[in-house]
């Protein structure tokens, strides 16, 4: 088994006074798709934001390859090859679709060419000139994923890419994630919907109260469904 | 009162008129006290000063405190007509003396006159009569006014128009510009179109400076029209530079380079202030001196008595020859019409004016009976 690409150890994070992560630890290996599952407010988004360096105060350790991320500003973290697709998508209203797509600066060589991106998301090609936020929710989600593929980043952090989307679009996003995995991207995925997660992931971390309480291999998911449902309160 | 005679110099220390009054007036008052010997009738003379920020409420607040608590006997300078008008009745009420050098409004010795007010250096009437009348006499008989659109500007325009027409001149038009306009080009274009020989600037401070500056830019003076500044100080000319200001005609009560006495005073003043005195600052010296003399003569510092004494004595100092304080408080003095020199004529910094005409006090100021001052008999 290969070396972990990303290792989080004893991570604590704070929103002002409030303590959101209480000793989060996990690791991700190159080429894996790993999900974070957990109830609302468990700390999934906070974990992603901590990796990306957009959280306020954090302590503990986040190692990416040989680099400690905890003190780096987020632009430096991005430059190491980590890209983020935020929960609220973050499509820019003052930019058109093309500008939105071309916005993130390339980090290193090997980013996905625009043509391939259009092959993956044909809808985007048709709407290049419209204002970013005029796209439908699903298209915005596609755009949010598409724009980080261009940059050459190899670790993608996808925060609830299916939230608020129509079932038909969720299925399409699932296909895209599987394609990305085949191309060697490493993906950390946050999901509420574990049925969807099961169709794309290798492993699942269950998060509660700001720490990992369990790890389930996708292969074992079938046996452990009950346990998982209990965790998630479904 | 008490065992000191306290002089309060109240003026603009920080803003528009700080250069022509401000610390310079304080310095002039100090020189006067020094020359007087530092004491009067055995009492020490003290000077305090404050900044009224050109705001009547600030000014009257300070004046009240000075008179109520600090024992100030005389308030001097007070530029800015609004502040002066606010102070005059207050000072009368407390029976103190008001020797005003800085304010322009002729109301101080007219409608708003007070028995304890002495208006020392100049007023709007003198400015308009001096500039209006003398300029017409010198051939500038068609006028166009650039008037600042508020009471002061209107008054200046009205008074000057009267003088101009009375002297046989003609008013071709006027334009009212808002207070503190930064750009005058539009107004100047209108003035230019009027083809008047004289463009009268019935405004003050920054407005005057900017109109002069931009008139030069638009080639108005080069095109043969002349500017007449109704309220211009030597410091303004200094700020503008002769290149821009040349040819401007203006009225003043004092110019540092008039004779040996004025030059001597200017030299002493410059030693402290690093610049030449304005007519207001020079006036503060004269006013304070005259006040102290009256205190000495009358042997009291009660306001009404001191002022009565001031009105009895003639004024003679480096700036005023055979002047007098009239019954309404107006100081009768000679005024002068100057023209700003061309750059070539000037021998160096501060050498700016050449005399066009001296105007006797009787001609320059409003006749006593016309002012509408309530306590002037007859």
């Amino acid at each position, binding site marked *: 088994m290969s070396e972990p690409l990303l290792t989080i150890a004893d991570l604590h994070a704070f929103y002002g006074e409030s303590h959101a992560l209480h000793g989060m630890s996990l690791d991700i290996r190159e080429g894996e798709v790993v999900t974070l599952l957990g*109830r*609302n*407010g468990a700390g999934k988004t906070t974990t992603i934001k901590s990796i990306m360096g957009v959280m306020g105060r954090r302590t503990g350790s986040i190692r990416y390859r040989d680099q400690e991320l905890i003190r780096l500003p987020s632009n430096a973290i991005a430059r190491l090859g980590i890209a983020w697709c935020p929960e609220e998508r973050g499509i820019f209203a003052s930019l058109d679709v093309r500008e939105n797509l071309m916005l993130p600066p390339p980090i290193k060589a090997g980013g996905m060419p625009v043509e391939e991106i259009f092959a993956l998301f044909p809808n985007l090609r048709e709407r290049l000139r419209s204002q970013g936020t*005029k*796209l*439908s*929710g*699903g*298209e*915005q989600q596609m755009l949010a994923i598409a724009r980080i593929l261009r940059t050459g980043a190899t670790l993608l952090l996808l925060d*609830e890419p299916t*939230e*608020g*989307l*129509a*079932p*038909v*679009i*969720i*299925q399409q996003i*699932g296909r895209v994630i599987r394609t990305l995995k085949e191309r060697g991207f490493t993906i950390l995925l946050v999901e*509420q*919907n574990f*049925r*969807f997660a099961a*169709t794309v992931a290798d492993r699942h971390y269950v998060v509660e109260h700001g720490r990992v309480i369990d790890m389930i291999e996708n292969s074992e998911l079938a046996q452990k469904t009950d346990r998982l*449902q209990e965790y*998630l*309160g*479904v | 009162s008490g065992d000191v005679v306290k002089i309060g110099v109240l003026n603009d220390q920080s803003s528009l008129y700080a250069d022509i009054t401000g610390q310079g007036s304080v310095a002039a008052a100090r020189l006067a006290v020094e020359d007087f010997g530092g004491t009067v009738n055995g009492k020490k003379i003290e000077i305090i000063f404050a900044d009224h920020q050109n705001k009547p409420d600030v000014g009257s607040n300070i004046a009240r405190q000075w008179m109520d608590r600090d024992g100030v006997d005389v308030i001097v300078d007070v530029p800015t007509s609004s502040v002066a008008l606010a102070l005059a009745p207050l000072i009368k009420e407390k029976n103190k003396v008001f020797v005003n050098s800085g304010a322009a409004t002729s109301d101080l010795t007219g409608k708003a006159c007070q028995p304890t007010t002495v208006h020392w250096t100049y007023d709007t009437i003198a400015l308009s009569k001096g500039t209006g009348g003398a300029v017409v006499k010198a051939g500038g008989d068609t006028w166009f006014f650039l008037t600042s659109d508020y009471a002061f500007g209107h008054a200046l325009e009205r008074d000057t128009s009267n003088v101009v027409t009375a002297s046989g001149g003609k008013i071709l038009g006027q334009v009212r510009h808002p207070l503190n306009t930064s750009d005058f080009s539009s107004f100047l274009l209108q003035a230019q179109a009027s083809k008047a020989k004289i463009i009268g600037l019935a405004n003050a401070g920054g407005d005057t400076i900017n109109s002069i500056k931009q008139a030069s830019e638009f080639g108005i003076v080069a095109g043969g029209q002349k500017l007449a500044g109704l309220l211009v100080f030597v410091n303004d000319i200094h700020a503008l530079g002769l290149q821009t200001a040349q040819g401007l005609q203006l009225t003043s009560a004092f110019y540092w380079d008039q004779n040996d006495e004025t030059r001597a005073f200017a030299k002493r003043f410059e030693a402290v202030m690093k610049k030449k005195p304005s007519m207001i600052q020079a006036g503060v010296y004269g006013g304070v001196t005259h006040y102290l003399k009256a205190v000495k003569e009358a042997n009291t510092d009660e306001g009404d008595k001191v002022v009565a004494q001031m009105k009895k004595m003639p004024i003679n100092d480096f700036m005023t020859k055979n002047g007098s304080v009239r019954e309404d408080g107006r100081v009768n003095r000679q005024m002068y019409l100057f023209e700003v020199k061309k750059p070539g004529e000037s021998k160096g910094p501060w050498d700016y004016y050449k005399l066009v005409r001296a105007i006797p006090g009787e001609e320059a100021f409003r006749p006593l009976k016309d002012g509408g001052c309530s306590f002037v008999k007859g």
Partner: protein
Amino acid sequence: MAGEFILETRDLTKEFKGFVAVRQVNLKVRRHTIHALIGPNGAGKTTVFNLLTRFLTPSAGTILYNGRDITHAKPASVARGGMVRSFQISAVFPHLSVRENVRVALQRPLGTSFHFWRSERSLEGLHERADELIEAVGLSEFRTAIAGELPYGRKRALEIATTLALDPEMMLLDEPMAGMGGEDISRIATLIEKVAKDRTVLMVEHNLSVVAWLCNTITVLQRGEVLAEGPYEQVSKDPAVVEAYIGTGHV
């Protein structure tokens, strides 16, 4: 007044600078039912809500509420007429306590809301009713808590209590379950079911199991137009709906 349909739209249309977000929608909501509005993203569901509650002005068409034309009413007067909405993102008054949140809604019918000379104590009579409502949504233990500090699911419960305080005849709920975990989903769904007994509810929701559980009638919008309408069993089998919305690989 007591017609069969509490709310009707006729050819309701909204155009944003040449883009038609809602096109000739004829919606009929039957009294005392839970009616769902579903459809792909960008279909125009929120826009319809905004039109109904007059947060947006229709480009064309009419809205009838209890037989009355409210197409040109003001948003606040629509609310006073008994049609109250919730928001897609949670909407509480974060610095007020739970009880004060509910009280803001309760105080309106008193008619003293412009009385700036009257004491706040004149509102204390409302506490009893407020506490009843808080109890009904299961927030009794949080009565004095500051609303902003509540967990997400509880905030939504509070929002419903506040809405109920107006004793609305009709409630419009925009994605009440969005971003909610399974546990909260079932609590809120139960709550909606309970309060809908003698009211009418129109809701937007992507969670199909909730829709299937709660809703009597479902209207599917697509590109601003009505694609299908009917009970869940019927709509969910409609091939057009499956293609546009549900998809084949149901997850």
